[in-house]
């Protein structure tokens, strides 16, 4: 469904990702792991139109979207849950969710989508009129995911959803991610918590210093000694 073809993105003179290629099939949950500063957020932001790519192509069902205006990406069913959530904190939870359904195709189904999000996150149903900035971290993450789901995405991009959340909340969050994946939404997940990410993903890519260093099925990656050492051992200690 999505084909990232030899993409390069840079900030000024510094290249953040170089020659990155990856594919995501229909209804797949693919994760990208890697250390801080490897370019994971740059990659996901480029996919959402938040950052222009220098060269390469982003093909959605064979059509290159990388030359579109930033506000046109979502027309193709791409929605993002960005790093740090980036909610519209001065607006209410309801307004944040409604804004998720801003694109024309999603606007018509707004009421039904809102019900669906409230069913997925019952705690949000009670806080719809609260200011988004007044919510707890976990609830804000729910709003960020809900906002993206309101866009009726075909491809959902999740950037570090577990960042800064308590372990118990992270477990619940990954349950939700599984539920969303099971409902037929294709997902790309960027995650620091490698152990957890490999549990939910059907395939994974390892991004190091802006390049794809390894890829494969989670079981296969887990067996590789360099990955065990660099990611699985360390992440378990860190937590």
């Amino acid at each position, binding site marked *: 469904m999505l084909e990232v073809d030899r993409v390069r993105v840079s900030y000024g003179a510094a290249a953040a990702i170089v020659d990155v290629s990856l594919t995501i099939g229909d209804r797949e949950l693919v994760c990208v792991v890697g250390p801080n500063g490897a370019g994971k957020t740059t990659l996901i932001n480029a996919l959402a139109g938040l950052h222009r790519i220098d060269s390469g192509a982003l093909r959605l069902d064979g059509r290159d979207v990388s030359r579109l205006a*930033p*506000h046109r990406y*979502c027309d193709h069913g791409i929605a993002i849950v*960005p790093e740090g959530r*980036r909610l*519209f904190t001065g*607006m209410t939870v309801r307004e944040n969710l409604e*804004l*998720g359904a801003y694109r024309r195709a999603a606007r018509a189904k707004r009421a039904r989508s809102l019900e669906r999000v409230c069913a997925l996150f019952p705690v949000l149903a009670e806080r719809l009129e609260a200011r988004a900035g007044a919510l707890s971290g976990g609830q804000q993450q729910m709003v960020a995911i809900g906002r993206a789901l309101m866009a009726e995405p075909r491809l959902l991009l999740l950037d570090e959803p577990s960042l800064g959340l308590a372990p118990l909340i992270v477990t619940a969050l990954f349950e939700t991610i599984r539920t969303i994946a099971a409902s037929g939404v294709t997902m790309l997940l960027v995650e620091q918590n490698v152990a957890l990410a490999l549990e939910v993903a059907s395939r994974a890519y390892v991004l190091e210093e802006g390049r794809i260093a390894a890829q494969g099925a989670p079981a296969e990656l887990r067996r590789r000694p360099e990955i065990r050492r660099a990611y699985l051992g360390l992440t378990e200690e860190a937590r």
Partner: protein
Amino acid sequence: MPSLALLAQSLASGIFIGALYGLLGLGLSLAWGLLGQINLAHFALALLGAYLTYQLGTAGLDPLATLAIVLPAFFVFGAALHWLFARFAVSAFNSLLVTFGLTVIIEAAIQWIWSADFRRLESHYADIRYRVGTLYIPLPELLTLALAVALSLALWAALRYTDFGKALRASAEDASMAQAFGVNAKALALLLSGISAALAGVAGLCIALSYTLAPSQIYAWVGVVFAVVMLGGLGSALGPLIAGIVIGVSEALTMAFTAPSWAPLVSFSLLIALLLLRPEKI
């Protein structure tokens, strides 16, 4: 002790001048709060609008009908101004400098076209006044109040309840995130900047109906309207009107009870008190 009639007269004139402050502050506040653009030229634009109303009105056009010409022209001007600001990535502080320069240019243009002599629009509106109790209320002032209330309420409702308004508020907070959800933030910014300039045109009409015009009048309201905008809250549509009336009434009462020269003290004391007590509001 002033008489009851004087008190009522002060209250009324305070409300009317406050409405003009609110109307002048409305466009300024929206552009500042939602676009990060401090448009000092808003005042020059309002006075230019007043002169245009004067010119067209003197040529025989009904003052209200001049809006049909002034509003579209100002809308285009405002949108073009923002397009330039966006094109050259002008920061909020630099926008203050640029629009100060623009103010000087507009002032020079006004002086060149209409000279520094006083100009007064002779319209039949100015002669109409309504008697309420012991007060006489001129139609132009009533019109200013009505326009200020109607426009503030309409914009408040649009910002709060429409998709357009929500998209604007969202882009003010995080433009690229709003874009990721399909908001054409650039187009909305042009639209809002145009609306803001058109509001200066409306204020210009009100100024032309009630005041004698001179180029230096550009600077007459700068201080007090900035105070009104800050008191009302940046980006707020109802705030400037409410703050404008509060300041207008307190100024008028100060004038009635002490001397007219004390009036400016009130608005700035209020502003300083706000800065000291609730700095997070600004």
